[in-house]
């Protein structure tokens, strides 16, 4: 939390001037009852009309100065709050960009996005309110009491008694209700979840004719929410009536004491009026203060969440040497264990690939295929063992230069909003149209461009919504190809393609100019059987490494996979 304070740097002046001007304004406000008192005691008592007019002009002037002060304060506060949030947002975004895959897995993107957006907005409001009001309300409350003391000590003691009692009630109720509001939120989350679930799962729910049961479940959760809401409502509904009763009791006591003092000639009636006015000011400010505190508490919670992310130590590991050209890769006894999971995802994997070779990786769901390829661009670091790329230990290579030389086509075909050309240039910012077309051709994606009116300038909507799954997949392949990288990884990236296109793609990949080392991850034997080396994974172990014909003879798992897809079909055909 405290570490966030450094983002106020450059706004120190604003942070001091904002509250300062606010306090000035409050001081002028505190003078008003005194002016009224002198109007009563001097002006009215002596029938001095010019004096009354003079005093009223002073009152209006005080209001005007107050206005100027407070406008100045608002400006400084807004400036500091907005500037602070901007810097904080930049810092957080920067931080997130530096996270490794492992950290991103741990945090989850949804959480991070909330921190960046709604939490950030709440912090901005919080900072703004704090600068404007946090000091003001206590200042007015205490100021009113101090002013009361200057008028009459004995009467002012009533203030000294009333303020603590009022504070206990206001803050007590607040303290009780804040945790209750959290409960409301969690109940609301349940209701939200049920609603969302019933939308995403509508087909299944209706297929099982479970509508009535879901309705009952929803009503149940909804009732739960309402019950908590009403309970919190009842608790916080106590605040206003209780403070109201107390402040009036205090006023009665004040007037009675005042009456006694006036009677004995210590006080004037105008002064009693002034004391009464101060008493009224206190309550208003206390209640404002309470709602301010609720707002600030929310903001502090948000700021803390943002701080937590900023404090996550260490960015991604990177070596310092640039990567040598070429695509030789060697795994020596490599194991991988993700932070959370207890078991190894990959265990003792060793293999060697020469530049330009094609490597097939096959295995069941969850056997570690993607995990293995994720090690090559150093998305994750091996827990033990060594990975050598062109003879260099991967941990010594500069991560940026490594990733520039490794092109990845991920399982999930993600495109970004912008033109097709923009997307293609993700791989290579300087790619010419000619290079892009070549990559598109290899990826069997030329027809997508042809079908679009604007060719490469066609707009892709966010998430590639205006393209089909197969189109997206082919474009992501083309995007990787524009990199001209020495190593190309296709992580099950032809799943949305029909067999004919998939086959054409494989042929085209064989004929890429710069002859990269290609990794093909697949569940289909047909996709990998022509690879130079096939790695068969089962539960994180490499149970077979070799060519198709070798593995058919020596590896049971491979044979089983192959038979399940191929042999039987061929015989039937």
């Amino acid at each position, binding site marked *: 939390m405290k570490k966030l304070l450094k983002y106020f740097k450059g706004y120190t002046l604003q942070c001091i001037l904002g509250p300062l001007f606010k306090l000035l304004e409050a001081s002028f406000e505190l003078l008003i009852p005194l002016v009224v008192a002198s109007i009563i005691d001097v002006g009215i008592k002596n029938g001095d009309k010019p004096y009354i007019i003079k005093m009223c002009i002073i009152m209006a002037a005080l209001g005007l100065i107050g206005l100027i002060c407070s406008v100045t304060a608002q400006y400084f506060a807004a400036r500091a709050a907005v500037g602070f949030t901007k810097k904080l947002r930049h810092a957080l975004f920067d931080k997130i960009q530096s996270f490794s895959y492992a950290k991103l897995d741990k945090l989850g993107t949804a959480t991070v996005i909330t921190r960046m957006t709604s939490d950030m907005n709440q912090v901005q409001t919080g900072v703004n309110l704090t600068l404007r009001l946090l000091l003001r309300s206590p200042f007015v409350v205490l100021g009113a009491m101090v002013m009361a003391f200057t008028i009459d000590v004995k009467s002012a003691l009533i203030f000294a008694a009333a303020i603590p009692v009022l504070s206990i009630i206001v803050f007590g109720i607040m303290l009780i209700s804040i945790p209750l509001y959290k409960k409301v939120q969690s109940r609301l989350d349940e209701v939200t979840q049920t609603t969302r679930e019933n939308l995403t799962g509508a087909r299944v729910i209706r297929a099982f004719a479970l509508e009535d049961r879901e309705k009952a479940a929803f009503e149940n959760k909804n009732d739960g929410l309402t019950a908590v809401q009403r309970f919190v409502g009842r608790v916080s509904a106590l605040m206003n009536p209780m403070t109201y009763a107390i402040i009036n009791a205090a006023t009665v006591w004040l007037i009675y004491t005042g009456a006694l003092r006036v009677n004995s000639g210590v006080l004037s009636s105008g002064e009693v009026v002034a004391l009464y006015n101060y008493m009224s000011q206190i309550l208003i400010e206390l209640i404002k203060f309470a709602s301010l505190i609720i707002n600030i508490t929310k903001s502090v919670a948000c700021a803390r969440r943002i701080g937590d992310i900023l404090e996550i130590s260490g960015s991604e590991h990177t070596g310092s040497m640039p990567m040598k050209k070429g695509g030789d890769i060697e795994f020596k006894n490599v194991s991988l264990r993700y932070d959370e999971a207890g078991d190894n995802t990959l265990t003792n994997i060793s293999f060697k690939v020469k530049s330009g070779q094609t490597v097939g990786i096959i*295995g069941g769901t969850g056997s570690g295929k993607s995990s293995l390829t994720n090690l090559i661009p150093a998305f994750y670091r091996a827990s033990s063992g060594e990975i050598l790329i062109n003879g260099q230990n991967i941990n010594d290579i500069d991560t940026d230069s490594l990733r520039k030389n490794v092109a990845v086509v991920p399982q999930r075909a993600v495109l970004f909003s912008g033109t097709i050309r923009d997307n293609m240039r993700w791989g290579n910012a300087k790619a010419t149209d000619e290079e892009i077309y070549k990559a598109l051709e290899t990826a069997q994606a030329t027809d997508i461009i042809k079908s679009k009116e604007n060719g490469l300038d066609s707009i892709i909507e966010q998430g590639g919504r205006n393209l089909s799954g197969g189109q997206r997949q082919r474009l992501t392949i083309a995007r990787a190809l524009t990199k001209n990288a020495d190593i190309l990884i296709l992580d099950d990236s032809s799943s949305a393609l029909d067999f004919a296109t998939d086959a054409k793609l494989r042929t085209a990949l064989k004929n890429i100019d710069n002859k990269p080392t290609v990794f093909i991850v697949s569940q289909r034997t047909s996709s990998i059987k022509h690879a130079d080396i096939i790695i068969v994974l089962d539960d994180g172990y490499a149970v077979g490494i070799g060519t198709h014909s070798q593995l058919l003879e020596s590896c049971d798992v491979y044979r089983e996979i192959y038979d399940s897809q191929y042999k039987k079909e061929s015989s039937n055909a």
Partner: protein
Amino acid sequence: MKNRSTLREIFIYLKPYTVLIILSVLFSAASVVSTLYIPILIGRGIDCIVGAGRVDFVHLKPILIEVIIVACTTAVLQWLINTINNRITFKTVRDIRNAAFEKIQELPFAYLDSHPSGEIVSRVIADADQFADGLLLGFTQLFTGIVTIIGTLIFMLTIHVGITFIVVVLTPLSFFMAKFIAKRTYSMFREQSQTRGEQTAFIDEIIGNQKTVKAFSREKPSIEKFDEINDRLEKCSLRATFYSSLTNPCTRFINSLVYTGVGLGGALIAVGGGISIGSLTCFLSYANQYTKPFNEISGVITEFQNALACAARLFELIHEQPQSADGSLVLKDTQGNVELENVSFSYSPERELIKDLNLNVKSDQRIAIVGPTGCGKTTVINLLMRFYDVDRGNITVDGENIQKLTRRSLRRSYGMVLQDTWLKTGTIRENIVMGKPDASDEEVVAAAKAAHSHSFIKRLPKGYDTVISEGGEGLSQGQRQLLCITRIMLCLPPMLILDEATSSIDTRTEVRIQKAFARMMEGRTTFIVAHRLSTIREADVILVMRDGNIIEQGNHTDLLQKNGFYAKLYNSQFEET
């Protein structure tokens, strides 16, 4: 106009709480009057304090006691009002939410498929919440605000007409000032929220796909783009924040002018003996209070308009056309003879998808539907399950038109496994027994064993009692699909629909599941949609679809011999590279 009908609707929802509302209104009026009465009492009290040795204690004491009694009564009334209003608001919102949820269960898929779920969720949750806030505020402040204004006016008039005039003339100024600022800042706020939206979309896109960003070393360009938006946001946010924060100081300044005006007028009149000092004090505190409801009301009105807009969105959902009427016949002892006669269907009028489809499926047959993506395979299933109604033609099950059957009985006769593996938040067991809530543990385990999910379920931290979340995080796509299959294995309806049911399961496991499927399919009419031709080969009838039409129909051997589209698809799988 629209507002009026929304209001009318709100009143319908409020109707069950009529008594409470009447009580709330009565109590509010009473509490306002008593709140306003206190300054008068205090003014009278102050008038008793004339000067040294001249304080009228005889009159002062009963006045002060009266103040205490009135204050306590007011406090109790206020508490009652708050409690009642809470009750009305939260219950009304609960009722509306329930109605909205009920509607969700009845909406046609045409609506659900064309509206992002996030949008509907935001109506049921965020809009309802906003509506509650607005309603509560409206209740507590709008009404009391108006009563306070009128009440104060009357009380002031009874004391002194002239000073009242000052207050009445000057007060609206603060109201107009607030409106003026709000109008000027509106465009700034719009600019801010647009820029904010732009930034959120960018964050969504980049951080949502952070792994791809890293894979392409695009961190730096992303930060640059982010900063560019961030700079713009800073500027417009500063404008919006600052200018809107002027409202409070400006209205307060006008309030102080009113106060000064009352002080001046009052004091001058008091000099001539027109009013007492106590009355002047009373006036001053009224002047303070009188502007408050005006300021509040302008806030409440925006809030209330917002609430109305939210309510309108909710009602729009609630009034959405429900799915076509349900049939009344209950499908019993389903044999599984399904017939499609001249069926035509399209999602949108511009693009006809299925045209004059004819299909005759005998009990126990296995029908495979193949074809490229977007050819209408899934649409056929939507029609069979009556998720959508046909535009023309008839679908019959055992000779009964499905439009005459209850949806419940029709759908329960199908066991459906979709490619989209939906699991609900809850335990594994709860997810499995969806089709048969009273299944015994033994039955559940047997089904899981048959679907080859038992072994991985056993390895989960709490086995069958492990709670999984909606997205099914922690489970692989394949495992989720196995759970969906288990669900069907348990209840075994007379007909089956398998839409890419094994697409995410590795082929080794698939071979094993196929055996279970084969057993399951015995004696059951089955519709299979699949990419993998291996799954399809053994079907009795293969429908080859393209652009919504069935272009080939027959069994595997026939179709290969025909050497048409199917043969091309099939051979491409084994093409040598």
